[in-house]
């Protein structure tokens, strides 16, 4: 090892060396990234391609599996069950996401302000629900909502009142919104807090010297500094809302009358393909949903980054 020739003697002329180095870099780079890319192709790209393929066919009683062109898409675009589900998650998105992100942002700002007693305890406790599986969260809240042995029932008994049933058709969407908020407030809070933590402290000092109050520091320094985190959290929440499945699917067992099998587009896709055996149409609905989600996520990003 110590007998290595000096680089100047051992290596070929610079240009050959540079080209060799680039090729070597490419090889090693692909060597490291290769495993991820290969599995990614298998579990992401191949299914997307397969779904596109499936969506062009239809199983018929007579004639078997045949090519139908865009028939499935035309059906999906005029399918009232699909549109009702989409409208439902749209409403959910419009109400739940701002509430959840608003609370998360306020808590993140409160913890970051350094004005809380026991801020580490706040941070970790409020984050805790993120570690709770959606199944457990839905079961737990489902029981709490219960008028039999849940908290709502307890309150009704104790005060002799009759609170409206959170699992009734009128309220069940709001009840799901509460579960999702509970699950993800802490996660989003942590994203915002992490972003706040890396804002250079000297900015606050400069703002304070310029006479900026706390509120002004928040609106003029902190919020612009974490704009990227805000946009990313919004995009993930939008995607999550459109994918709503676990919570309604679990609550369905407790409230079968309030949550139909086409309650959200994802529940609809699931029941189409696993109860109805309509794989081709299910793939089509899933693709339409994917396109709508991507369009909305993309426009959120464009809007969010505009003044950046």
């Amino acid at each position, binding site marked *: 090892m110590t007998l290595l020739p000096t680089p100047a003697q051992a290596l070929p002329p610079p240009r050959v060396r540079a080209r060799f180095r680039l090729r070597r*870099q*490419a090889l*090693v780079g*692909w060597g*490291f*990234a290769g*495993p*991820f890319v290969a*599995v*990614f192709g298998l*579990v*992401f790209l191949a*299914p*997307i391609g*397969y*779904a596109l393929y*499936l969506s062009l066919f239809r199983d018929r009683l007579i004639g078997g599996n045949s090519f139908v062109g865009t028939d499935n898409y035309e059906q999906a675009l005029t399918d009232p069950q699909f549109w009702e589900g989409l409208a439902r998650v749209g409403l959910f998105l419009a109400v739940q996401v701002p509430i959840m992100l608003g609370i998360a942002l306020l808590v993140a700002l409160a*913890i970051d*302000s*350094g*004005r*809380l*007693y026991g801020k580490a305890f706040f941070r*970790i*406790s*409020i984050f*805790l*629900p*993120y*570690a709770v*599986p959606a*199944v*457990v*969260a839905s079961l*737990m809240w489902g029981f*709490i909502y219960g008028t039999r*042995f849940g*908290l709502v029932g307890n309150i009704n008994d104790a005060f002799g009142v009759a609170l409206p049933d959170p699992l009734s058709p009128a309220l069940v969407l709001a009840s799901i919104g509460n579960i999702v908020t*509970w699950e993800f*407030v802490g996660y989003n809070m942590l*994203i915002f807090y*992490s*972003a706040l933590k890396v804002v250079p*402290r000297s900015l*606050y000092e400069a703002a304070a010297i310029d006479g900026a109050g706390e509120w002004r520091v928040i609106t003029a320094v902190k919020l612009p500094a974490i704009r990227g985190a805000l946009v990313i959290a919004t*995009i993930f929440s939008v*995607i999550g809302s459109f994918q709503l*499945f676990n919570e309604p*699917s679990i609550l369905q067992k407790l409230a*079968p009358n309030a949550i139909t099998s086409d309650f959200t587009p*994802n529940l609809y*896709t*699931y029941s189409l*393909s696993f109860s109805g055996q309509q*794989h081709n149409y299910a*793939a089509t609905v*899933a*693709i339409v949903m*994917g396109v709508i989600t*991507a369009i909305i996520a993309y426009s959120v990003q464009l809007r969010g980054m505009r003044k950046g």
Partner: protein
Amino acid sequence: MTTNLAGVDANAADPAPAGPTRTSRGSGRPALRPRRRPHTPLNPRPSIPLTLVTGLVLLYTLLPLAWLVINSTKDQKGLLGSSGLWFGEDFNLWDNISRTLAYDDGVFVRWLLNTLMYVAAGAGGATILAVLGGYALAKYQFPGRRAVFAVVIGAVAVPGTALAVPTFLMFSSMGLTNTPWAVIIPSLISPFGLYLMWVFAAEAVPAELLEAARVDGSGELRTFFRIALPLLMPGTVTVLLFSMVATWNNYFLPLIMIKDPDWYPLTLGLSAWNAQAQTAGGEAVFDLIITGSLLTIVPIVVIFLLLQRYWQSGLAAGSVKE
């Protein structure tokens, strides 16, 4: 690490509790306590109103968990007969746990072992792939690098359920459904993990260090394991923890892939118990569902608490850049 001028000043101005100790602790008049350090904009005085308001959110997040803990101490009769927010007459937690573990020939233990297997293989594998991939994207120039990144980030927007049906059909034709592989293989990809490792590696591993290692004649693999990997540790722990949560909590994927209860993870098993309680003639086991839920969340919560220093620093470093 973020030592700043004001912080240093504040510390310097603090004369340390050396002088005549006039602590009012116990005197019942904390208002007389001398101020320890001047409150600057960077070291503000804690506020009771703000703590109380934020405390409402804390209450909101902790109350359901408290409900779960309290009610896992009750038997079925206690669940129906006592208030949900306080303990019943009997304390049945240990009895509930042993009944949960023993019910239906110990199927809960089987589900727990399955979950551990899915987490070890799925989250472990996802972390390895994400670290290798993120490191490559951050530190090597190779053709297709930008395309890899664009496609992976774009894929995040594709709903998991949009993939579910075709993935199920694909796996079914490959004979993989109803086997652990159907859960493990899709768990191996974490786009978020790749993104985080990419951002993290770009910051944490200086190019000069890698260059120096190369000049010293270290091979690429050796450089990765000996030099890059230790620097990537906080990011790696973060990705591992978040993939662990994702796999531990996964419900949808096993729901479509696994029919045989012997391969269920805990989430699917709990939901099966719940479904059983709702069907006519099925045995209602709410007490076991509640205790099982508690047993399901305890390990993951403990891991998060134990490793919080690591994953929080990793997450913060990951948000340096967007």
